């Protein structure tokens, strides 16, 4: 029998219709996947069910009764829990404190720490989780933090658990463990909803799959009757995107690291050559960020040497740019653009003192406008409004502009960190094409991504980082996902 039914849900953000009359039924103990590309509305739909977003239209029925879910508290009371893609844990609190937050056991008005611990312990024991309950969450690994999220929901006695892109930051091994745990939970009667765009895991985990495209549910299919290709076609509508990498022709060394240490980064030696894409695989927080910061001059080197184009270099951001290092940073809004600046002002950022952006000490408004107009055209950034506040552009258009700007100055090395995260599929394709195009023209690319699929798709060579050290190197043609996953976890011989 149906436990939860979403009927005709619509939700609008500003001018954009995020959900258009979407209906979905969830039966007790079922494993359902909701798939779609970024921005298709999968997370929005589940955020409506969890009371985080207020739907503009539509109703939710639980056990046949119409209910109003206005807050997460309502959802939790109805037995609906959610594990978000970006964890909702308080880093400075302990595991126990995080789990009991919102329903704390008290005695005489005071927090009853012992009972809290016992209760959480009981939940963990019952569902087979082992966690260091007294540890502060910020000291845990990403995989453990995700377990805390799941325990949080189970502790509230949920009967339906929503997992939003749960494997985005996990290694293949951690992902396997997650799915075996949730499969067991679903066998015990828990309804599990998996939001994902990774079709392989969707097909192995779910029994039924709902496909969203631009806010509309376009199909609902049985997993047994689907293939990755058929799902991809449903998600995108017309064509299956393919990114084809041509054979690399690596030539001279652009950058060489020799025993470099910086922050988490420890004794790293490697080279990046012109005409190749070097991908970095690793679990979040294992030194990738530091590596990118060292190469772009944002972080000083503690030890070792960095050689750029044959010369030992002490970099700062300005020098790195002058020497031909371009940077597409992970957090676009923080590190790449100034949200309150116009599109044209953002195009000048980084080259504001050079022609055509400046004439002596003064801003060359016309030169800037001409160059901006050309870039908007060349990279198909919409709308073509140089005077518009860049914050008003969609993420995909912002990113296309950033990539275009960074490649505009004929750089030698491009450091790209998570360059396609959060973009819609068309923008993903555009950005990836630019990277490969740059490589084909003899550019060197360092690609850092937490999405292992992306690293494997684009890279000619993959380096694995674990706790700041290089733990593996793989050439295209010899990529072994299992082995790379083990190296990401620091397992060296298996």
């Amino acid at each position, binding site marked *: 029998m149906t436990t939860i039914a979403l009927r005709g849900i619509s939700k609008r953000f500003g*001018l954009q219709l995020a959900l258009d009359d979407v209906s979905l039924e969830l039966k007790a103990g079922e494993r359902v996947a909701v798939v779609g590309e970024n921005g298709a509305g999968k997370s929005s739909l589940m955020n409506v069910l969890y009371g985080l977003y207020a739907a503009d239209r539509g109703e939710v029925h639980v056990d046949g009764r119409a209910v109003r879910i206005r807050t997460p508290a309502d959802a939790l009371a109805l037995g609906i829990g959610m594990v978000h893609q970006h964890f909702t844990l308080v880093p400075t609190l302990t595991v126990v404190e995080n789990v009991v937050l919102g329903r704390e056991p008290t005695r005489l008005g005071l927090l009853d720490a012992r009972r809290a611990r016992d209760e959480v312990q009981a939940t963990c024991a019952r569902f087979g989780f082992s966690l260091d309950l007294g540890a502060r969450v910020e000291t845990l690994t990403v995989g453990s933090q995700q377990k805390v999220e799941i325990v949080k929901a189970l502790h509230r006695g949920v009967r339906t658990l929503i997992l939003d892109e749960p494997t985005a930051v996990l290694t293949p091994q951690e992902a396997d463990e997650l799915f075996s745990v949730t499969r067991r939970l679903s066998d015990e009667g828990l309804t599990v909803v998996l939001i994902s765009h990774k079709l392989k895991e969707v097909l192995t985990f779910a029994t039924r799959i709902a496909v969203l495209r631009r806010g509309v549910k376009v199909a609902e299919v049985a997993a047994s009757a689907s293939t990755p290709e058929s799902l991809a076609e449903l998600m995108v509508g017309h064509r299956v995107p393919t990114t084809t990498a041509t054979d690399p022709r690596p030539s001279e060394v652009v950058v060489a690291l020799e025993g470099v240490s910086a922050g988490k980064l420890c004794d790293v030696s490697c080279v990046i050559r012109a005409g190749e894409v070097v991908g970095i695989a690793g679990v979040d927080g294992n030194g990738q960020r530091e590596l990118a910061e060292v190469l*772009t001059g*944002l972080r000083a080197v503690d030890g070792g040497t960095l050689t750029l184009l044959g010369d030992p270099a002490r970099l*700062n*951001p*300005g*020098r*790195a*740019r*002058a020497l031909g290092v371009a*940077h597409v*940073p992970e*957090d676009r809004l*923080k*590190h*790449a*653009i*100034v*949200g*309150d*600046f116009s599109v044209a*002002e953002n195009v*000048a*950022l*980084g080259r*504001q*003192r050079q022609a055509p*952006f*400046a004439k002596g*000490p*003064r*801003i060359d408004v016309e030169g800037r406008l001409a160059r901006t107009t050309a870039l908007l055209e060349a990279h198909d950034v919409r*709308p*073509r*409004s*140089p*005077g*518009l506040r860049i914050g008003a552009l969609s993420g995909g258009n912002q990113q296309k502009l950033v990539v275009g700007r960074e490649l505009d100055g004929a750089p030698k090395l491009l450091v790209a960190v998570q360059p396609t995260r959060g973009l819609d599929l068309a923008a993903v394709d555009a950005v990836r094409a630019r990277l490969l195009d740059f490589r084909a023209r003899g550019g060197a690319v360092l690609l850092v991504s937490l999405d292992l699929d992306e690293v494997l798709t684009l890279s000619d060579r993959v380096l694995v980082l674990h706790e700041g050290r290089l733990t593996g190197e793989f050439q295209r043609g010899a990529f072994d996902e299992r082995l790379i996953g083990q190296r990401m976890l620091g397992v060296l011989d298996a």
Partner: protein
Amino acid sequence: MPETASPSRANVVLRSALPSVLAIVTSLVICFVAVALLRGGVAVAVDAFLAMTWGAIGDVPKLVDGASIAVLLRPWGESATKAALLTLTGLSVAVAFRVGLFNIGAQGQLMVGALAAAVVGAGLELPPFVHVPLCLVAAGAAGALYALGPAILKLRRGVHEVISTIMLNWVAVSLVENWLVPGPLRAQVGGGNSVAGTAQIHESAELPRLVGEVSRLNAGIVLAVGAALVLWLWLSRFVGGYEWRAVGLGPEAARAAGIDVSGAVVRAMVTSGALAGLAGAVLVLGTEQRYPATLGAPYGFDGIAMALIGNGHPLGVLATSVLFGGLRAGGTRMQLFGVHKSFPELIQGLALLLVAARLIWIRLVDRLAPPRGGGP
């Protein structure tokens, strides 16, 4: 609906200024109602507000009745004097805002600037065309130096500038008004008598009056308008100003773009301090002729209000300051109607509070006049 590629410049300017304008109008209305309720009737309130208006822009009815031009020039002098102070302190706060710093220390910087102007003005005897600039430079330098500390503490030691400038305000009050002015720098008048405050400055150090003895209208307002224009050009037309704005709006992005963030912060903060110091000089050289026993008014706070209501834009600050300078000069006339002369400050405070709710105004404006491509 006009379908232009991007919103016109005038439209953008209007939209960014509208919340401030609405906030000021609303606060004027609230205060009008308050006077009407407290002082018995709309007629009284109308009279009081008219008195304030004539006090600000000059007694136009009297002029029409044939009085001399002095009925305009005298109020202009008062309004301009107050507007000059508000503009300079407002620009001081606004320029720090532009690099993302909240300079609550304009008060302290103004104090040391005023003291420097008083000391140089009284201590040296020089021809006016050298003396006045020297006093201004001394005041600007003193204020700049006093603002340098918080900038360096912020960059090197991570001390929040709000805290350090609050502390430095207190240090300035303690050292200047509780030690130097009543102590070592106290004016000595013949016969062992002494007056409160420092020695009177020489006539050569006084800011030149613009229209003779009829009005107190002096060069201070020229200095203030000049500062606002220079700052506006710097921020909108020069690469250096562009870099300041980038640092203020996106410090991380600015650093990643190779901009010298620390340098921009230091230079902007020094400029901020210098402007506050200049305000002190204008006060001493134009109005007080000495550092008085106590400055007695929270000029630095007024600067914060001007910067915020003026939306951090140099010309916005200038316009706001001229308006409130006028209201303050005219406000003294309201005493005849039983309204305290601090009334304009109440209007100013309310306007600031309403400006703080900028988002509400923006939503209101967007609903009444949807932006390009509007509709639901």
